[in-house]
Structures are given as structure tokens and as C-alpha cells.
């Protein structure tokens, strides 16, 4: 079972539906027992970093995610959920994340040309570099996924497993051991996105 952590940030309807569509049981929950018993965990999120980090911390769910990461259970952060995996974010101030992956989150404005629109919104191609992570085993170089974001992860070179070009190369996905993160929305990226979730469910053998 996949536990989608419900900490009051964002819309979990599509995430639950997409796991169901690939035949995997999923539940949106804030119950620590359910999260502990899940065989994999999704940390979702849309909106502002500070607000989300606060909610994770106050609910104790942030701590639980860190605890679960140490058990080796596959965990995936999506969009803001991915950004929360890093050490800190500079979105309106400086805020601490869960520090499961070294790196920080900064405005894309710092790296993209002035005439590019912010947020980076729409379908963009994934580039995997030399090696393709097992998360993308069903994908081909250049497959398109759906992005909506104004901030991006940086100083995380060792963890980057995919990038997207938007006037600059932006971190699209990261992995460190059993912890994964996608800046884009697999649950909104059609068949390509479902194939990423499928691969995520098969990491470490499907249960």
C-alpha cells in the first residue's frame, strides 16, 4: 500500500486516482500507524515552502518521514514535496527542509533569462544524462512531463537523475538511496507519469 501523506497541503485526489489506475492501493492519510505500515510513501505538496514546512513540523509528520527514510522504505516527494526533502529553501526568506537530500531550493529567476515566464508551467522534456535511474525504466530520453513551479533545487549535483531545459537546465528529479523527488507532477503527466509511478512501486520488489 502507498501512503500519500495528507498534511493539509494540496489536492490529493489525482494522486490517489493515479495509483489506483496502475492497480496499486493508495490512501491519503495523516495517521502515523497507516504511514508506518505502508510499503512506500509519497510526500505531496503545492503552495508555499514555509507554510508546508511548518505544517509538516507541527503535525510531527516531517519527523516521521525522516524516520521512514532511515528504514529504507521508498519515499517520493512530488513538486513542493520534493523541495521539502532538501536542506533549505530561499522562497521568501530562508526556511529549513527535511534535509534528506543535500542541496537547496532557489528561485528559477536566478538562472533563467529575463524574458522567460515564471512559473515554469507546461509540458517539458526530461533529460537523464549518462545513466537512467530505475525510476525511469519505462521512459525514453525526451519524454514529456508536466511542470508547475517557480523554485528549483540546486547544489544537489550528486542526486540529480533528470533535468529539463527552460533557458537553463533545471533539476527535474533527484534520488538519494531510497529517497526520490520529482519537481514535475507524475500524476498529471499522462501515461509517462503513470509509468514513473509504476516504476516507483516496483523499486525494491513490489509488495
Amino acid at each position, binding site marked *: 500500500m502507498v501512503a500519500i501523506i495528507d498534511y493539509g497541503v494540496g*489536492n490529493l485526489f489525482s494522486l490517489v486516482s493515479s495509483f489506483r489506475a496502475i492497480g496499486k492501493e493508495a490512501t491519503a492519510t495523516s495517521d502515523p500507524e497507516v504511514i508506518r505500515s505502508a510499503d512506500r510513501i509519497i510526500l505531496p505538496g503545492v503552495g508555499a515552502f514555509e507554510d508546508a514546512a511548518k505544517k509538516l513540523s507541527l503535525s510531527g509528520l516531517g519527523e516521521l518521514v525522516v524516520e521512514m527514510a532511515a528504514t529504507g522504505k521508498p519515499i517520493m516527494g512530488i513538486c513542493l514535496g520534493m523541495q521539502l526533502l532538501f536542506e533549505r529553501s530561499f522562497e521568501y526568506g530562508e526556511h529549513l527542509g527535511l534535509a534528506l537530500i543535500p542541496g537547496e531550493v532557489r528561485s528559477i529567476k536566478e538562472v533563467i533569462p529575463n524574458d522567460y515566464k515564471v512559473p515554469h*508551467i507546461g509540458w*517539458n522534456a526530461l533529460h537523464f544524462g549518462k545513466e537512467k535511474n530505475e525510476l525511469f525504466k519505462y521512459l525514453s530520453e525526451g519524454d514529456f512531463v508536466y511542470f508547475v513551479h517557480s523554485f528549483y533545487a540546486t547544489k544537489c549535483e550528486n542526486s540529480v537523475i533528470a533535468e529539463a531545459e527552460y533557458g537553463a537546465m533545471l533539476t527535474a528529479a533527484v534520488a538519494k538511496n531510497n529517497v526520490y523527488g520529482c519537481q514535475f507532477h507524475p500524476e498529471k503527466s499522462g501515461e509517462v507519469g503513470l509509468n514513473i509511478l509504476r516504476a516507483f512501486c516496483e523499486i525494491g520488489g513490489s509488495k
Partner: protein
Amino acid sequence: MITKRIIPCLDVKDGRVVKGVNFMGLSDVSSPVTLGKYYSDNGADELVFYDITASSEGRALFTDILKEVASTIFIPLTVGGGINTLDDFDRVLKCGADKVSVNSGAIRNPGLIYEAAKRYGDQCVVLSVDVKRVEGAFRVFAKGGRVDTGMDALEWIKRGVDSGAGEIVLNSIDTDGVKRGFDIEMLDAVSKIVSVPIIASGGAGSMADFVELFNKLPKVDAGLAASIFHFGEVKINDLKKTLIKNSIPVRI
């Protein structure tokens, strides 16, 4: 490289998809779930559902249908029609919408854009504007394009973006249903004053109209249409092949 988006729009009334020509004389086309799935499987980058139902029974029916669409289709969904309050945002977001489009509701209460952007983020709030030329100026029309608000369209759009609208759908009443191409002049005027994504709507009659749109206006991000897609006059996959031939980046 970010791609240009092709977006079919489904006007839904009493649970069925309809399309008005110049907003008058509706004709039944198909089921929202069937049509949505068809588009999602055949190259649509996003779907827009407008609820044009007036009754509360129809509204409840729309919400049920939206849930059904959102649990079977995994591309971005924008929902509009009858969005007047934050509760309306909440209602459609809970059913799986990713973005909510406001039109008359924001004209009546411009604070709605700011409040919704604050609660759900800019990326969630789409300002949809029906524009028509009146005495040489671009004017905002309300209530499905029937009522002249007297407001200047460029000023209204600028204000909407400043309040937090994350995207603009620009529908030209002058070109809507005429199928002679998008309103390049109006879209150009708007793209010069805003920095958020612009979705062009109204007037697409052929693939060439989309090529013209993206070639002439590189700042336009997406093209939206209804009847030419619903009646199969233009197939999205064919359209995308044509766009690629014309060096316009799209997702295939």
C-alpha cells in the same frame, strides 16, 4: 524546451458537452467522460471544463462528472463556470480540478482573485476574459459574453495578474465561432502587457490558424478550441505533427 499546449474545451450543461457558436444556439456533442478520455489519449495537453449549467441540480451533476473525469484522466484539468466564491474553488478542487478559471465571478468581486491566489497559489487561478471590440477599444464582456461591463480589457487583465491570476484565457467574442483564425491583434495587445502564460481562444477553424497563432505571437503559450476538435475537423495529433513541421515545439 517548454512546449506549446493544445487544449480542448468542453462546455458542460446538465452533464453533457455542448458548444455554442458565438455563444448562441447550443448543440449536444457528447459525454464529458468519453470525450475527455478520447482527448487525453489523443494528444491533448490539458482539458478545460466549463460548467454552463444554471441550476443547482445541474451543478451537483457537474461535480459528480468532474470527479469521474478526474479519476480516469491524468493530465491537467481546468474548471470554470459558476465560480463566485472560495467555496466554489474548494468544491471543484476537491473533485480533482488542478486550476480554476474565474470570469464573471471575478468581475463582480475582484477580490476573489487575490483571495484564491493566496489560499491555493497563483498557479491555481486562471482569469478567463471574454473580449469584444466596442468603438475601437477592447472591452470586457460578462455572463457568457452577453453583457458589456464597460471595462477596458487591458486594464482588467493587468489588474487580474497583479492580484495573482497565474494564467489568462483570452476569448475573443469577435472571432469566436467564425472559424477564420484567432484574434491576433487582441492577443498581441495583451501579450505585450502581461508576463503570465496566455491561452488563446476563439476563432480556430483549421490547423493553419494554430500555426499562424504561434508563429506570429511567440508569447502565446497555448491554443484552446472546442467545436473543431469535437466534430473531428481537426485531430489534435495531426495538428501537432503540422506544428512540428513548422518548427513549433509541442509534446507528442
